[in-house]
């Protein structure tokens, strides 16, 4: 078929729209529409009318009632603090270990590198729910192969570390590979001068490698922050195993309990909206910080 220049140009205008169309439609359908619907629900409430059991309930406009009760609910703030506490452990430990392992993998003359890299990466392929089941068995004294008889992994303080550990376990491998790949992309010549000057491998790692892979580390931090904000599967699956985890242990569990256990989707919707707003603010801040750090690192290069 012969195409004239004119039609080809017209097509070139149409193609990008065609290409983004599926993504746009999916976004409208599965992000925007549910988001708007949640917003609508958050301004409603179910009220029972008449009869002992009020089986003739109806949905009414509730104004800001749900939001008032969400913001005035101390349990939600407590659960947010718990999430922050777990995040405060998970984020530095995950990123720190990922960086450490990546540097170790990149160390000349380290052995068992392939085995270690695969082993550390392996938990990434294990779903969070299943990873939590695994660790649950590790923690409970009755089945613990790691000393659960001596340490109470579900003590009031320990439980934060127990939950954090599952997140770290699942997250280190992926981040390690990200940083390791960044290390591998560096030209080896840049170490040569330092080696000739007699710098130790530790010095090379700290003074040359770490600054060079800062953008990757920043990216990993962002991933880990995002994951920490969505903390749900781990505590929710651990809950039946111990008294230490309540049904509103983290904000997402609170939303889940409201929506699916207490059948109050309206309250859950309002909590979701408040939580999502908070997450967006924190995430944008984190993303911005990561971006500026990356810029800094870029300038240092």
């Amino acid at each position, binding site marked *: 078929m012969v195409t004239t220049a004119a039609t080809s140009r017209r097509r070139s205008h149409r193609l990008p729209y065609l290409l983004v169309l599926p993504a746009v439609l999916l976004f409208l359908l599965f992000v925007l529409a549910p988001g708007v619907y949640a917003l609508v629900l958050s301004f409603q409430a179910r009220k029972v009318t008449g009869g002992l059991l009020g089986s003739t309930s109806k949905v009414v406009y509730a104004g800001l009632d749900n939001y008032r009760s969400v913001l005035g609910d101390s349990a939600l703030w407590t659960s947010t603090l718990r999430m922050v506490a777990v995040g405060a452990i998970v984020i530095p430990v995950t990123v720190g270990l990922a960086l450490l392992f990546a540097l170790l993998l990149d160390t000349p003359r380290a*052995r068992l590198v392939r085995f270690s890299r695969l082993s550390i990466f392996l938990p990434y392929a294990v779903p969070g729910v299943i990873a939590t089941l695994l660790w649950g068995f590790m923690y409970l004294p009755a089945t613990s192969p790691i000393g659960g008889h001596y340490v109470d992994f579900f003590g009031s303080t320990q439980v934060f570390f127990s939950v954090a550990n599952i997140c770290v376990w699942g997250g280190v491998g992926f981040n390690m590979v990200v940083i390791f790949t960044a290390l591998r992309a560096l030209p080896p010549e840049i170490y040569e001068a330092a080696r000739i000057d007699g710098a130790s491998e530790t010095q090379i790692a700290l003074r040359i490698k770490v600054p060079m892979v800062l953008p990757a580390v920043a990216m990993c931090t962002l991933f880990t922050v995002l994951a920490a904000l969505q903390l749900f599967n781990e505590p929710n699956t651990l809950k039946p195993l111990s008294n230490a985890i309540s049904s509103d242990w983290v904000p997402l569990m609170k939303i889940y309990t409201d929506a699916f256990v207490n059948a109050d989707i309206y309250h859950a919707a309002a909590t979701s909206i408040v939580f999502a707003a908070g997450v*967006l603010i924190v995430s944008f801040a984190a993303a911005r910080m990561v971006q500026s750090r990356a810029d800094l690192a870029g300038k240092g290069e």
Partner: protein
Amino acid sequence: MMTAVTAAGSIGRTGASRSGRRRRVALLPTVALVVGALYCIVPTLWILIASTKSPAELFSTETYLPSFSGGLAGNVRDLSSYGGGVYWHWMLNSFLYATIGGLAASTVSACAGYAIAKYAFRGRKLLFNAILAGVLLPQIVLAIPQYLLLSKVGLNDSYASIILPQLFNPYGIYLCRIYAAASVPDSVLEAGRMDGASEFRLFRSVGLRLMGPGLVTVFLLQFIVIWNNFLLPFVMVTSDDKFPLTVGLYSMLRHGADEAALYSLVITGTLLSVIPVIALFLSLQRYWRIDLVTGALK
């Protein structure tokens, strides 16, 4: 811990003797790596041991010791007959969801990422920001309204209800955009245009081909996301023959009030569910282009 040290030590010695002139193996880093590796595989090893125990042995024998009384075969048999073989159905479902969802999501992402990277069109900036915001929204916030909306069009409890909401993958689009920008040179596209190729043909035969390796990574990332997803299928489907593995195993654990959980079966099921993903990753290992993830910031 002890074994880690001795193992590393012995390897150190053989290493030294083999490469006469060179200095000794970096002992400390190797030990640290092995400790890390053990940390990551010990739970998996434990489950391997636990799955060899019959239900009667699981809570009555020494935790560390595997059983050789044929418990594993018995567990696999019980698991296969549980609910008329529904476990294997779950595994098949997980594969279907993750494969179809992964392929479709990478296609959608590739199209959108390429367009955003290679064309200046109206709404581009807005679109990209909306996509970025999409990365940040927790899934649970959308799960309930998604369920209610999909139910209204009669798609609840269907395969589509699990796959469709996961096709929009903001992170995938983001990566594809970066990858298209980096791997598809404008000069090649210009040359193609000179030769009279249509834009669509350029996308298909130049763009997609050059983005290929990156797309495998986008696919694998999305495959894992869907494979590991619990909440969405838990909310969406009610028929146990549509469960993926995550929901199925969870339902076996919390089978019903006042009812014993099927721990032996859950443990065996967990073990069997981890194996195929590991196999998949090992076989696709060389197609992993993680530098794409890192390059994203450049």
